[in-house]
């Protein structure tokens, strides 16, 4: 088995597993950090952004000044933002049979794979994953298409030119692979290839492999996957959480007895405890609002926002913030809030029971009813009429490069009363803020990442005890900025195998067995012979029939009928010829008794020598040697066939035949 690693991002994985005779892609995450190199796309003409000076090389050349702009010492590409796709050269992606999606954040590259590579297989994902994934894609496409850019920069990508650029552009990897965002038709086409699955549902792939999604506890519909044959089991753990938030809890028990456990999608902020961060979020929000400022929360339209709204629901009254409006602005805000309420079966137990009360599982319904939370598809339209300050705005995109958030950054950035609170851990907040500098508004970084941390991983591994662990290389060493924190890495025995982008890994287990079925008629013919207590053997002559990776022993064909009629005998190449089989032997030869028998049969000068593996019986007169070892017996005599046969028969007396 091989694993092809197509993504270098540990939380946005894309791996291809060659397992038995199937090719399975595990997730197709899209690395969007590349967009941080681009200028934001403002919804409303921004004088500040449009006045940014073009970038001039040290030698004074200005040929890049249309493509690159300078802002507070950083250089940005003035073009439609582009994304870094998973590796496409490592293997022919058209050979991928299936794609397994573990959560909606890990499917954002799907259209690039299904629509550009000749992919003809099936994608498996749970319903909430597909629905919320669709929302995320829709929001992404919408945010970018809303602000058409006349130009698209490509000159800077030239290897020679890139070398001259300042960091981080200079160091950006695989810029030639960066692609513009897909379109809605491509999204629809990609999603149409998805087949919906439920937790613990067993899906057969070509008879050889069975895949099963398990609840991973991280997000609505998020799953880990079990990929197994009869004798091998690979677990794919991606984005899991043991915290009690809204989704169904993680199913750990089913991960036991894995030969290999592929571990990705751990928390990106291992030092931050999510509870502490939520408290930090609430404190900073309250402090800003009480001081008369506005709070901006750049976020995805689904996921942590549900938990944040739930916390705020409990907190705002106690903090005296009941009169402060909360706005949720996203083209998919409405669908996201509504979807979350209908996926009852995918929710944690507490929330599931509410459905029968009947009460909406999430309290944001009540926030909406009481007008404390209002949602809008965009800042245009109704929102501009209702907008009151001070307020709290939740909007995307967390990269601050596109979406309605760009407008609020421009609007509120100049006042130190306002605060932007980063809760999504996917982007460095300092990089995200770079094109808005100098910035007066306060910035608070409260990344809330509920995925497994290293302590939880260590407990999980102790619990499920996989034979081997495979993980991205980032998890096998402490984070680069905190090299002394040796507690922030995976610690297991044997040490985890690590992989990096564009690497092919041989998975560390051997195929040893295949399961073969015997047809009943053939089984009837077997005559087992007990050779040791509890162990019986039988010989079988049959035809092995292999189809769709299923192996069946069938009755051997009857001996060919004598040709009837005068038809020319056809070459019967499709029926293998069956020769009568020699019997098999078992048992061991007790040397003393054997020697006695030899003497009884007239061999007088028998000598026995011990060897490392057994004995040699010498018949000096006959110049013959009988070599008895554990699994073989040789009679070595000089062209005396009758003697050999005689000796053979004597040996056979001590063995069982069947």
């Amino acid at each position, binding site marked *: 088995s091989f694993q092809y690693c197509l993504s270098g991002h540990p939380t946005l994985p894309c791996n291809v597993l060659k397992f038995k005779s199937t090719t399975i892609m595990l997730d197709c995450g899209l690395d969007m950090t590349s967009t941080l190199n681009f200028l934001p796309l403002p919804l409303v003409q921004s004088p500040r952004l449009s006045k940014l000076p073009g970038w001039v090389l040290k030698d004074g050349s200005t040929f890049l000044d249309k493509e690159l702009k300078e802002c507070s010492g950083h250089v940005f590409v003035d073009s439609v933002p582009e994304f870094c796709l998973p590796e496409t050269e490592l293997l022919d992606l058209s050979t991928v049979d299936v794609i397994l999606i573990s959560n909606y954040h890990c499917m954002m590259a799907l259209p690039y794979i299904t629509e550009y590579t000749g992919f003809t297989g099936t994608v498996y994902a749970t319903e909430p994953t597909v629905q919320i994934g669709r929302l995320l894609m829709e929001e992404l496409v919408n945010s970018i298409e809303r602000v058409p850019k006349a130009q698209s920069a490509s000159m800077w990508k030239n290897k020679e030119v890139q070398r001259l650029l300042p960091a981080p552009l200079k160091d950006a990897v695989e810029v030639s692979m960066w692609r513009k965002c897909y379109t809605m038709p491509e999204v629809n086409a990609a999603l149409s290839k998805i087949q919906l699955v439920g937790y613990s549902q067993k899906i057969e792939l070509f008879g050889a492999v069975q895949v099963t999604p398990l609840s991973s506890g991280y997000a609505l519909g998020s799953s880990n996957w079990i990929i197994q044959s009869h004798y091998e089991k690979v677990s794919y753990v991606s984005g899991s959480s043991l915290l009690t938030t809204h989704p169904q809890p993680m199913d750990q028990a089913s991960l036991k007895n894995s030969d290999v456990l592929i571990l990705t999608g751990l928390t990106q902020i291992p*030092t*931050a*405890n999510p509870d*502490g*961060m*939520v*408290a*930090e979020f*609430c*404190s*900073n*929000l*309250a*402090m800003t609002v*009480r*001081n008369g400022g506005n709070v901006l929360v750049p976020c995805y339209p689904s996921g942590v926002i549900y938990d944040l709204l739930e*916390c705020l629901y*409990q*907190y705002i*009254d*106690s*903090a*005296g913030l009941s009169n402060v409006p909360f706005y949720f602005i996203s083209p998919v805000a409405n669908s996201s809030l509504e979807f979350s309420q209908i996926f009852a079966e995918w929710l944690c137990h507490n929330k599931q029971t509410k459905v029968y009360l009947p009460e909406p599982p999430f309290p944001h319904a009540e926030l909406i009813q009481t007008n404390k939370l209002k949602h809008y598809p965009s800042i245009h339209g109704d929102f501009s009429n209702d907008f009151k300050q001070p307020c709290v705005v939740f909007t995307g995109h967390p990269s601050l490069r596109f979406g309605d958030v760009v407008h609020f950054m421009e609007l509120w950035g100049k006042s130190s009363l306002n605060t932007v609170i980063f809760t999504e851990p996917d982007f460095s907040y300092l990089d995200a803020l770079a094109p808005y500098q100098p910035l007066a508004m306060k910035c608070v970084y*409260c990344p809330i990442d509920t995925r497994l941390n290293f302590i939880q991983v260590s407990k999980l591994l102790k619990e499920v005890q996989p034979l081997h662990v495979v993980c991205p290389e980032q998890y096998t060493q402490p984070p680069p900025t*905190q*090299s*002394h*924190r*040796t*507690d922030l890495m995976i610690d297991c025995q044997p040490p985890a195998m690590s992989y990096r982008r564009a690497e092919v890994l041989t998975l560390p287990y051997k195929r040893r067995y295949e399961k073969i079925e015997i047809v009943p008629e053939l089984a009837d013919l077997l005559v087992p012979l007990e050779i040791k207590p509890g162990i019986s053997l039988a010989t079988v002559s049959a035809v092995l029939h292999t189809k769709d990776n299923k192996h069946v022993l069938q009755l051997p064909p009857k001996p060919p009928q004598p040709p009837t009629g005068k038809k020319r005998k056809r070459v019967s190449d499709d029926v293998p010829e069956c020769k009568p089989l020699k019997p098999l032997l078992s048992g061991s030869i007790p040397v003393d008794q054997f020697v006695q028998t030899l003497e009884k049969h007239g061999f007088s000068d028998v000598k026995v020598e011990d060897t490392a593996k057994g004995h040699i019986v010498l018949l000096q007169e006959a110049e013959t040697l009988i070599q008895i070892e554990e699994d073989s017996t040789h009679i070595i005599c000089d062209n005396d066939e009758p003697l050999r046969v005689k000796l053979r028969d004597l040996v056979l007396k001590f063995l069982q035949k069947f």
Partner: protein
Amino acid sequence: MTRECSVLLPRVCAALADPRQPGSDDTCLEKLLDWFRLLAKFDPSVELLQNNPCLAEFITAVLALPEPSPSILSFTLRLAGILAALENRFQHLQQEQLLVRLFGRDGPLNSMLWKDASVRSGWVHGVHSMMHHQPALHLLCHTGGLDVIFSLQGDPSLFVASAANQLLVDMLILSVETEMTKPASTKDCDWPACAQMIIKHIEDSLQSSSASHIEQSLKLLTSLFGSCRAPWTEVLWLGVAKQIESFLMEETVQAQHMLANLLLKMAWSPVFCDSEGSFWTLVASALEHLTPVQAGPLAVGLLKLYKCPQDVRIQALTVLLQPMDCILRAASQPLEYAGLLDESVGDPITVEGLLSSKSSCASLLCQTLAHLEELLSQSRFQVDLPCASLLHSLMTILQLCNGLLSPASALGSTIGRVLINCFRVQSSALDVLAALSDRKGCDTLIESLFDVLLAYLDSPNTSPTVLKKAFQATSKWLVRLQELSCSNTQRQQAEKILEDVFLVLQKRLCSPCWEVRDSSLEFLTDLIKCLRDQEEFRQSLLSSEVPRLTENLLEDPESYVRASAVTAMGHLAFITYFAPESPVLGNQYNKENTVAKLQEILSTDPEGFPRRAVISIFTEWLSQGCTGPLEDTGQFVSRVIQTVEHDLDWEVRLGGLELIQDFCHQTFCQLGLPECPDDPVSSAVTGSIHGSESLRIFCRAKLFRFLFRSLCDCDKTLGQRACHILLNLSNNFYPLGTPKDLDKTVDLPAGCSIAWLERTLRQGSLAQNFPTDGVDFEDPESMMLALGTIDLLQLYDELNKSSDHVEKSPQSLLQDILATVGTMEENEADCY
């Protein structure tokens, strides 16, 4: 014994000895024993038994029962022991061999009932009570009782085992002190027979291979040396010293953990601590050979001991500081910091091993830190600790715990890995840090210390309990910082630190976790209390958002938080509007607003805590003279007590009384009346004028209504307090020597309202009769009359009697026991 009791007692005894009776309630039996204990103590004669023959008859009757209940048997054993504590009573009981039959070979200890732990316990306690004279000692020794006690040392019931152990100690002391003919000496020691047997038992057990026997003897020696400081203990010790010393060296015997305690008890005994002999060598050897966890309690005990020799003291300090030293060395560059201890002292390998193991690191550190805190907070005898290094080590621990320190050595990384997010160690370290703030010599590190503290205050990973500790340490060190700020640079540095603290505090005041909001407010109150005179502090505080956020929290949904916010606001008032140079602030900060707000809480808050906080803040304001001139204060007090008078929470009402007490005190002080009634300078001159003036003020403030009403409050504490205040007032208005009844007519007409008041008070039914139509509590003359007529002293005595003084009497107890019997008799009758 009262006559009533002696009449009841025979019936009670008969009932208890009656096997048909249901087992009497154990608490009754215990109370009965308590009563007998008192009787036996106060009547040291044989008459108790002679006058109450029913007692001996009771014992005889129980002994005659074929199957007494275990609880009655146990009771009988203990009763007999209590009675036999006096030699003549012992003899009296022995006339009928009662004690031999109870405690001897053929008594309960040979019956099936011995299996019951309560019987064994009764036996041990009975013997113990009796063990005050030689006859008792002989009775036991001659009837083989000692062997029984030896075996009870290992009793499965821990209570029995420990009582047996203590009994042996007391028997040994009794035997030596009453039977020894000449003083003990090492060369020729003639122990009395009983002592001889016990000592031999101790020696044999120590030499046995049984760990439990060794442990029992060590326990025995520990309690012996702990309770007896006679010179003969040294002779006894010399007989076992070698054996005990060997326990230190042999790891096969698991007795080390008990040695620390034994040696500590010995060190406190003048017999050993003053000796020139080998005792201190043994202690030194114990400090060396015991594991750090075992040696820690010994070390800290020795350090608290004034008489400990200097070299042992240094060694104990080394044991205690070694983990801290190890942390310091492991975390810093080799040459950067010398460590806490000389390298030559001690072997750090064991400590290093313990610190790098996940299972032992936190517990060793927590123990060490607890010991250090104990030493630091000891005010009587200060132990000289290397404070600067200790502080450095504490900071290192705290930084390892939050992952902010990258240690230089492999050991450091291992320890760091173990300590990450360890809340227990964090809180203990912060406790020591707080205690260290009083010591001198740490000042150079103060800036980096605040970096560490601020990191804790700011980090979202800090747990609420750790945060509270961090707040406590910060407030202590902020006080120290202010004391140190002399130069301009230091002042700027302090200002910067304060600014950072308030920034963090702002955030914490908005926390969604109520515990955090609460401890933030407590921290603020603490700071104001300590630093309100510092100009820099006031400036920093008032220029931050903290005061406004604090005011917001007066409306917090959590009552504890509201209470803390009230206290904080109350103290904040000392710097905002009560300070002479009170800065000009926005409208929302004016005094009237705050007072109105607090009064609103006092009258409307549904929970008790905030209301209690308001009343105590008002009292605080009053006692610090912040409530303005007397006239205003009177109005203020009047408003407040009218609100609290009807409060459902008794603590709030009590707070009201405290306010009145302070108000009275202040009034007397301001009007120049001697408050102390015994003051001879009193009266004649000032009495009439100021007396009537203050009485007028009190009446106008409507104090008396509340005071008299409180006399009959269903919570007695209030009655006592109100009575105390009234007594004080009465003494002030009728100074010593002015006969109260001379001023007014002695006999009040029956219809007079004060006479009614007096009557009602005597019946204790004032509370039901309120409001009282006839009494005018605002009329100075009536009140003067009331203070003069009502016997407040008698009322005070009545109130001081505990409410169950009737139920607690022995008579009532005896009646109770008979009552249960009575019901049985009735039931019996029903059956026929």
